[in-house]
């Protein structure tokens, strides 16, 4: 359990850094909001709508493919821990595992879902 102390310190440091920057910058900056300043784009064209926009549907397939390879990473993790004491046999097994998945990536590539525009 002690080795998680570093994780805990890292976590609190991360949260603390964000909070510190937010509150410190609020403390030292001048507060002078006016209408033009609060626009999404301060210069040039008048903005239409708000800053929340609908993103392109094409992004979703990247998210789905990412999920599949994320699950693969879960299997890579215990393999990587055990690899040092298992040797070549484990390496071949993992290569088979990855090659099967690479077929899927090639399929997605061939079908053109990874193409932009």
């Amino acid at each position: 359990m002690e080795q998680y102390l570093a994780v805990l310190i890292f976590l609190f440091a991360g949260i603390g850094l964000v909070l510190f920057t937010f509150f410190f910058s609020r403390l030292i900056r001048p507060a002078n909001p006016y209408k033009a300043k609060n626009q999404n784009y301060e210069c040039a064209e008048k903005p239409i709508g708000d800053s929340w926009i609908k993103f392109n549907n094409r992004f979703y397939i990247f998210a789905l493919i990412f999920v599949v390879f994320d699950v693969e990473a879960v299997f890579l993790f215990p393999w990587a821990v055990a690899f040092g004491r298992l040797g070549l046999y484990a390496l071949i097994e993992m290569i088979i595992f990855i090659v099967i998945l690479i077929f899927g990536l090639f399929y997605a590539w061939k079908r053109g879902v990874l193409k932009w525009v």
Partner: protein
Amino acid sequence: MIAGVFSQIGQSFQQLIGDVSSNPLFYLISFVLILSALMVVTLKNIFHSALFLILTLFSVAGIYILLHAEFLAAVQVLIYVGAVAILIIFAIMLTSQLTSKRIVQTNEQVTVALLICFGFLGTAFLSIPYTVWRIADVALPAENIFTLGKLLMTDYVLPFEVVSIVLLAALIGAVVLARREGS
């Protein structure tokens, strides 16, 4: 009689979570978990709800670490905090006119839902002391994840490779569905 039930519930929890119940971190993480879970179901902006859902899932990973389930914690962070949260956020950002809207998370059936939820909570509380929890009497292997990796590479190598085919099927399925909608 009610006091007896409660003391039995307490004992069961003690038995289940063991030394964790004396760890102040457990209470800190549980507090964050419950608070963020409440935020998920009460906030008016669905995007903020999604962000709090990530915090909830992350806190669950913390609970797993306290329970010495290190691999489960890693999976929780990788799959839920990493992938599922990304999927949810993408789904919100890809849906038009959802992100900036203030949404109401309740409807006229809120009383019925509350009753059902409390029913489930009560059932869980009452069934915990009367369930026989089988706890392995052998000590946990010191190198939890190493043992898992070794087993995956030796005894369970065929299921391991089959998982890859399952993932391939999921990937191809996603591509086929996306292509049909796109074209």
